[in-house]
């Protein structure tokens, strides 16, 4: 394990809200992370602090082994693409890219030019006159072409249509394959990015609730559909994270893996097993406080125990 970012007991308190609540995690080198969670969960705050654009209330952040705050050596190796990035008033995309070329040592102009072409971005229009999608494209191009060793994309897709998003995903993967680097991708379109990301980091209400490989996360929960009473009997002792019912038929999502024998037994009992997508899993686990919250909190502890 080779962490490029180490976060320990990081807390960020705004006047009346706790944006980050004593979080600790590592980010491994040359890995694409999905940094997921609901709006206001603390994603942007965390990324701002990691890039020294914001200051923690308490706790420690190490990037490449150093404190990033006012540290040009560390900062010049990172790039943070914000969803609501502001640009100088008179700036055009051409200016923005020319600036990025000045400040990012690994900037690739050829890649930038190709992307400008693919996104059909007008270079000479001032940025404040661009559409929302074009504005996002400016950020995406800076994020990809800067080739920073750690790149943060904070919901970079707003206003981008499905075609443009696919361009972004494909380019990200292709360039990552040739120039491995660390990427933190924050997104609400979990299904769209789930195949791109190697690890998931899920934050909820200022706390990290999942930090594991995407493969493990996918197997974390199972959905079972069938006769309600049969299911209740079969799932005794399991942690249920969601239930719905239609008449006597229930659909229940529970945590934990099934071995082949258990699988066969459930199938034999006439129950249908279905996998739970990453998006479903995260939606279930970050939903507003439900009666199952306590069970969830308990499972968080065990999860952390496992992933450490």
């Amino acid at each position: 394990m080779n962490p490029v970012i180490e976060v320990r007991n990081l807390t960020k308190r705004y006047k009346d809200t706790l944006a980050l609540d004593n979080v600790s995690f590592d980010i491994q080198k040359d890995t694409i992370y999905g940094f997921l969670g609901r709006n206001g969960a603390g994603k942007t705050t965390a990324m701002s602090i990691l890039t020294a654009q914001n200051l923690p209330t308490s706790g420690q952040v190490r990037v490449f082994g150093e404190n990033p705050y006012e540290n040009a050596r560390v900062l010049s190796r990172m790039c943070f693409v914000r969803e609501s990035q502001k640009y100088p008033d008179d700036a055009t995309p051409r200016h923005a890219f020319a600036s990025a070329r000045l400040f990012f040592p690994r900037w690739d102009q050829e890649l930038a030019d190709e992307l400008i072409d693919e996104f059909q971005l007008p270079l000479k229009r001032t940025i404040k006159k661009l559409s929302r999608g074009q504005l996002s494209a400016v950020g995406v191009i800076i994020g990809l072409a800067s080739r920073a060793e750690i790149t943060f994309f904070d919901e970079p897709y707003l206003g981008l249509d499905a075609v443009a998003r696919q361009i972004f995903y494909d380019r990200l993967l292709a360039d990552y394959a040739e120039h491995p680097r660390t990427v933190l991708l924050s997104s609400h379109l979990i299904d769209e990015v789930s195949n791109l990301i190697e690890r998931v980091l899920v934050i909820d209400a200022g706390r990290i609730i999942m930090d594991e490989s995407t493969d493990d996360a996918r197997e974390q929960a199972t959905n079972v559909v069938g006769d309600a009473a049969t299911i209740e009997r079969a799932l005794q002792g399991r942690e249920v994270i969601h239930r719905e019912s239609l008449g006597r038929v229930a659909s229940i999502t529970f945590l934990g893996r099934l071995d082949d024998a258990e699988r066969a037994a459930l199938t034999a009992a006439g129950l249908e097993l279905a996998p739970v997508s990453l998006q479903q899993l995260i939606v279930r686990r970050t939903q507003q406080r439900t009666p199952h919250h306590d069970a969830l909190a308990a499972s968080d502890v065990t999860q952390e125990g496992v992933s450490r």
Partner: protein
Amino acid sequence: MIEEGKPLFVQIAEEVEDSIIDGSIAEEAQAPSTNELAAFYRINPATAAKGVNMLVDKGVLYKRRGIGMFVSPGARDLLLSERRSLFALRYVQPLLAEARKIGLGPADVADLIRVSAEPTTPTTPTTPTTPPTLEPSDRRTS
């Protein structure tokens, strides 16, 4: 193509296996690289690498230093026998489970299979009911 429920790297490995089984990648031919797989299936290269490594561990692929991955001699036979042994579990058992649910016994199912496999019109070529014969694999060495 990509579905939930099975780890992604297993699915990638199976895609490569399918290409070997149907002969589109011959034994001793070069297999697609991790990056090619990642770009084609739009997945993280680490996941593709995991799939490739799984095939290496299984002896289906082997690495030639500085060149890339190649299909091992005998890989096709290996895969065929593995798939055949999995056939009952993967296809026959779910079939029987569904049949049981709607009141069909194993004999009914067998009849249905026989009928379905019969040519519907004289012009349709006969589908072999026996497993496909293996290609002569005279190039095999080890």
